[in-house]
């Protein structure tokens, strides 16, 4: 029952926010709502009994679809990430001005409802519904409040994802007809009798949908543009939480449903992921825009996670679970910094920035820590995850691990280059008038940095959360 609340709270507060005409009320109300959600998530994860985390009721009996959600180990980490991100994003961007801001916050909360649903649904049709419900508000958010090329860019993003999800729908329908009893429940789909040939076709139908969302090379072209053009608050959600939908779906649906195909095609998928990692890292080096750099760096990180999933080891899957959470925290931190710089100085280009550390010391310290976490330095959270993942890749194939390892070096190159150009050197005209960041932003960055260090030193809580499901996923094949 408590899991249902996690969807209902953002859904209803979101709908309510449409009618709050006052900007301040809408802002405060959405922060209030997201904090309540966070509190509910904490209660659900740390105090609730397991049977309270399930919710299962009739929805479309004639179609064999049930409204069934469950907060199991795998979803716990991501639901927690979703619940943390929204208040952080709302508070950090508190001073940003949006025209008709009540609609902005309403759509953000609706996105949260969709994300919660995606991470908890255990019915394929319901999963598909939430998958789209999370997409549509983002389409409007980015198209209305985005940058100057927003309409075309967001549309590209939408069409890409929509094609993917339609292919997934075809796959779901096909599976549905091969279940023993007509049903969309994941346990019935797992028991479906399908031949190896069918499995191979269905694998690609699902994989394309998820690969677009992650994104995996060569389906990534929507991503840098969309990240750049969306309003930064939306970009934080997009890259912090939404891309995890793709990874999560691979773990929850793709690998368990088609274990043989996942093994057969693991080399192709891993090759694509590794190519994407190197490719995105190389492009990131040449970027002159903070947002685009983070976007490409994000492709590289996601590529590593996707490759590791297909090595199918316990240690690797644990690493992916951990890293999905950590990457969300780190990347949201970086976006907050990018947004703070852009809001104050009106530019995101390194070439126009420099010497910011002298003007904004507290921002500089926090920025450096987050940048180091992005490179996965020891003591930061990303180190643990990346270590586990590389360990698993190494077991799979030494050469793959070696090539993928280059991306770590490249990550250091572009991240440090960015830090250096923005923070150090002589102050230029643009940074001359810079002030240190506001309290909101600092506090939110401090929260994130605390999580970075805490999980860097002691990642066990997240590992414990996901341990059961990791074993289920890996043993299932």
């Amino acid at each position: 029952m408590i899991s249902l609340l996690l969807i209902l709270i953002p859904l209803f507060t979101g709908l309510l926010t449409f009618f709050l005409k006052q900007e301040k009320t809408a802002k405060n109300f959405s922060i209030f709502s997201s904090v309540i959600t966070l509190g509910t998530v904490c209660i659900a994860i740390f105090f609730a009994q397991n049977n309270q985390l399930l919710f299962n009721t009739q929805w479309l009996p004639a179609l064999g679809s049930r409204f069934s959600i469950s907060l199991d180990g795998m979803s716990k980490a991501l639901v927690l990430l979703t619940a943390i991100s929204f208040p952080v994003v709302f508070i950090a961007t508190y001073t940003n001005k949006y025209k008709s801001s009540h609609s902005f916050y309403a759509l953000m909360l609706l996105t949260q409802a969709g994300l919660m649903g995606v991470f908890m649904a255990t019915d394929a049709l319901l999963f598909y519904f939430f998958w789209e419900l999370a997409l549509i508000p983002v389409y409007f958010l980015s198209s209305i409040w985005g940058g100057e090329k927003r309409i075309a860019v967001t549309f590209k993003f939408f069409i890409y994802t929509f094609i993917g999800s339609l292919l997934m729908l075809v796959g779901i329908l096909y599976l549905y007809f091969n279940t023993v009893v007509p049903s969309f429940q994941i346990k019935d789909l797992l028991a479906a009798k399908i031949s190896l040939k069918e499995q191979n076709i269905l694998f690609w139908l699902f994989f394309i949908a998820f690969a677009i969302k992650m994104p995996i090379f060569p389906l990534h072209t929507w991503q840098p543009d969309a990240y750049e053009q969306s309003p930064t608050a939306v970009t934080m959600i997009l890259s912090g939480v939404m891309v995890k939908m793709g990874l999560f779906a691979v773990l929850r649906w793709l690998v368990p449903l088609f274990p043989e195909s996942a093994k057969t095609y693991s080399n192709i998928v891993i090759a694509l992921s590794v190519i994407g990692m190197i490719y995105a890292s190389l492009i990131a080096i040449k970027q002159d825009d903070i947002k685009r750099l983070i976007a490409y760096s994000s492709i590289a990180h996601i590529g590593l996670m996707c490759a590791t999933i297909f090595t199918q080891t316990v240690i690797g899957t644990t690493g992916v679970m951990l890293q999905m959470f950590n990457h969300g925290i780190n990347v949201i931190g970086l976006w907050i910094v990018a947004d703070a710089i852009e809001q104050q100085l009106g530019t995101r280009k390194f070439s126009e920035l420099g010497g910011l550390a002298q003007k904004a010391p507290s921002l500089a310290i926090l920025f450096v820590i987050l940048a180091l976490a992005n490179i996965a330095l020891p003591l930061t959270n990303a180190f643990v995850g990346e270590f586990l993942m590389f360990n698993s890749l190494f077991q799979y194939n030494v050469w793959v691990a070696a090539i993928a390892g280059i991306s770590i070096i490249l990550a250091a190159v572009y991240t440090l280059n960015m830090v250096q150009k923005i923070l150090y050197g002589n102050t230029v005209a643009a940074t001359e008038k810079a002030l240190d960041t506001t309290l909101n932003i600092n506090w939110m960055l401090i929260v994130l940095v605390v999580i970075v260090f805490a999980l860097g030193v002691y990642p066990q809580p997240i590992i414990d959360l996901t341990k059961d499901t990791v074993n289920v996923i890996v043993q299932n094949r």
Partner: protein
Amino acid sequence: MNAIILSALGGIVMMFTGIFTQNKIVIKNIAIITLLLLLIGNLLHFYGIYMLHVDVKDMLQFNNFGLFFNTIAFTSTLIYFLLSGTDITKVGINVAEYFALIFFVLCGVSILTSFHNLLMLFLGIEILSIPLYILTGADKKNLKSNEAALKYFLMGSFSTGILLMGIALLYGASGNFSIESVPSTTSKVAEMANSSILTPLGLLFVFVALLFKVSAAPFHFWVPDVYDGAPSVFTSFMATIAKAVGFIAFIFLFESRIAELGPSSRIIIPFVIILTLLIGNITAVFQQSVKRMLAYSSIAQAGFMLFVLYSNNDISSEGILLYSVAYSFATIGIFAILIKMKDYTFEGYNGLAKKEPLIAAANTIFLLSLAGIPLTAGFFAKYYMLLSAIKANGQNALWLVIVAVLFAAVSVYYYFRVIQAMYFKEGNPEIATTNTSFKVILLALAAIIIFIGLFPTVVLNFLYF
């Protein structure tokens, strides 16, 4: 039977109303009341309450499926009257006649949902079509309207000719007009007729004529000009109810007879589906006028509805009903808004969300429904069609289904252009003033579409009571 009698009577009543009063509001309200009576009469039929007992000599047969489609058609028309009734009265001076013609179209619809004889099929199609030809030309002083009417009439007569030829051949094969004497996979009536070339040829002719009526490619050429040229209010009606009923006629005749078209039927139907989807979707992408875009999109939607012929199972029959509801409701809503606009191009919609937020929101829901986005009725409509295809042919249908969903993604492109214009672009759209009741009905319609999108089975349960 109630529906046929009442709709014909309704038409006559409307004609006479024109003699007694010229007051447009009175005429409109009489039309709405008559339609309500028609709807009630049809619902009474469900419970076995008849107005008259007529011996139809088995030329008509009534079943829940047809009656339910009648209910859909009449409800859609009611919504159409409520939303666009005032605009119908603005087309020309013969206000009562327009309503009368619409009732005659509904009479044709009722015949087509119950025919059990090829002559009745022919009569139904003619009763349906002739009023539509007149309505297309209703804007007498407009050259485009005249051109459209002439085109529609010529092409329509041509297709009727083909239909008659087909019926004649079938009659030649069996010596009987009853559709039971047309051989089907379930009943092999006459061995002689079965072996004869007349049956497949006759069926093929009827098939082509019906494809023409539902605007499937390659018999779609009349659609864009006619839909564009006709007064917008009537395009709305033509594109929804008059078109959806074509599929019902298709099901009654071809449900068990697709195979009788000969071995090529397995190629013909996928070919027609893909061609229809291709032409409808790709051409719609390049349109500058929303009205013309809707004409092409209606071809594209027909492509999806044609899946009913491909699958021929219980899911597809349920699906076509759901599709008719979803498609008719959304299209009527979009046209009701389009009629109010001064400029029919995409630019004409620029900035509508600022000026009329409620209308823009409703329009968005209608467009999302046509595009088949989840949470709207249109999603389940498409869903049922795809589901039925996979059920019918399993793995062999997979490629067709994948092609269809890719075209559905293309359709997002042109439907979303309207949303983009309304929400993301600046402009000052010229829109006729609308009263509160218009907005309320529009929002109620949008709410119904979302409700069906969440619980489609509520609508379909109707079929089984």
